[in-house]
């Protein structure tokens, strides 16, 4: 069937007198990247009916050390009435697997950079038209500039070599959407701070405390100035029961950003756990005042913190000293 169609298409092309030679696009798009690259070890899961989503996801998860078969993922990402899977559900399933889904910058250069770092890229393609879309997920495993081809794990094809123009058109019709799967603590090849921190933060509720510590610690090493990275790290430390480390981290945020309502609120929580009630109440009240002005969205959670603080028991001795630190800021 497909052979027949191809023959027909070829005949049609000939009869229309279509250009016989097509210019190579890859060398023009990326003149520096002349070396071919292919991640041959990338596993392959031929898709069952309609299920390129689970198959493509299983492929990139496996590369990041998660052994889930497409069949295990169908229940997590497939929507029967849509006969397919939604992009955000691929992200959600990645989080459930204890990994961080990172959306790459929508460029061919970013895609190549991930391949060079050893990570295959799960892409959305529109194989049809803007008005008549045919959505499909595949995994890019290689780029061959000399042959002007992109190499994919796609559908039932283990090693699909797609003409670069064809691939790029289908990818562009899907807004160049591509994701890689990161182990907690791993950095993407081309990273933007906000993109990565958002990716980690949205995965946070699904990650183990250890994974969160690892992910935020790496982020903090890259961006020591990032309040969000430090916040995530402090939050993980608190969850791990490392109270004095958590307190130190929150205090550092507050000393640099005195109006960081969320950090103040969480600092109050750590202080409570340390038995420093007077101080916890003072800090939580400050959090509330700041949030009322700057971040009305946090007023609710901070009010809850205040309400949950135990009616002041006697503070422990060591708290007095810490009090000074809060007053300075």
């Amino acid at each position: 069937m497909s052979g027949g169609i191809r023959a027909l298409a070829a005949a049609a092309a000939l009869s229309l007198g279509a250009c016989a030679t097509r210019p190579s696009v890859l060398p023009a798009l990326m003149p520096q990247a002349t070396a071919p690259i292919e991640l041959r070890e990338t596993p392959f899961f031929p898709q069952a009916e309609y299920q390129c989503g689970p198959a493509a996801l299983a492929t990139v998860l496996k590369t990041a050390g998660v052994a889930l078969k497409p069949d295990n993922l169908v229940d997590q990402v497939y929507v029967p009435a849509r006969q397919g899977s939604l992009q955000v559900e691929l992200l959600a399933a990645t989080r459930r697997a204890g990994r961080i889904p990172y959306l790459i910058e929508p460029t061919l250069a970013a895609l190549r950079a991930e391949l060079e770092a050893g990570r295959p890229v799960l892409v959305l393609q529109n194989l049809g038209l803007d008005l008549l879309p045919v959505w499909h997920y595949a995994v890019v495993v290689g780029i061959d500039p000399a042959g002007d081809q992109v190499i994919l794990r796609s559908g039932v094809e283990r090693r699909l070599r797609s003409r670069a123009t064809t691939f790029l058109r289908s990818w562009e019709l899907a807004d160049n959407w591509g994701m890689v799967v990161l182990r907690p603590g791993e950095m993407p090849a081309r990273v933007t701070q906000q993109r990565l921190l958002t990716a980690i933060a949205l995965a946070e509720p699904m990650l183990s405390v250890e994974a969160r510590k690892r992910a935020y610690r790496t982020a903090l090493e890259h961006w020591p100035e990032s309040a969000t990275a430090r916040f995530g790290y402090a939050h993980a430390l608190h969850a791990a029961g490392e109270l004095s480390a958590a307190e130190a981290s929150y205090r550092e945020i507050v000393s640099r950003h005195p109006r960081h309502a969320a950090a103040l609120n969480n600092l109050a929580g750590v202080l409570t756990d340390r038995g420093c009630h007077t101080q916890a109440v003072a800090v939580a009240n400050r959090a509330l005042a700041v949030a009322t002005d700057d971040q009305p969205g946090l007023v609710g959670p901070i009010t809850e913190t205040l309400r949950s603080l135990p009616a002041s028991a006697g503070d422990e001795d060591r708290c007095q000293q810490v009090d000074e630190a809060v007053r300075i800021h």
Partner: protein
Amino acid sequence: MKDTFRKMVAMLLILSMSLLGLPAVSLAAPIGTDTLVQLDQRGELLSRIETQLARDDVRAQFLQRGVSPTEVDARIAALSTEELQMLSMQLDELPAGGSLLAVIGVVFVVLLILELVGVTNIFTKV
């Protein structure tokens, strides 16, 4: 008679005490980094009620579209508030990557013609 009265008083007491106890029982969790990054420019969050409505709505839409009732809650739990809201508003318009077998009927004929003319490349399996 006296017993019933006593029982009622006891019930009332239990009820009022449990209500009194509520605020103390609600354990305030620290604010998560996921919440922090979802604050918008004006420092607002989707309210708890709006979030719950979006969640309920997506749940109902998923169930209608054949998602297994035993799986639906776990799937929703892994979505961010923003993602939930997006699904709630446009679940049927968002791309759903599936197999090419999903292309049927008129769509198939139109695409086949376009394929022959060389506009699309579905059947050469891109």
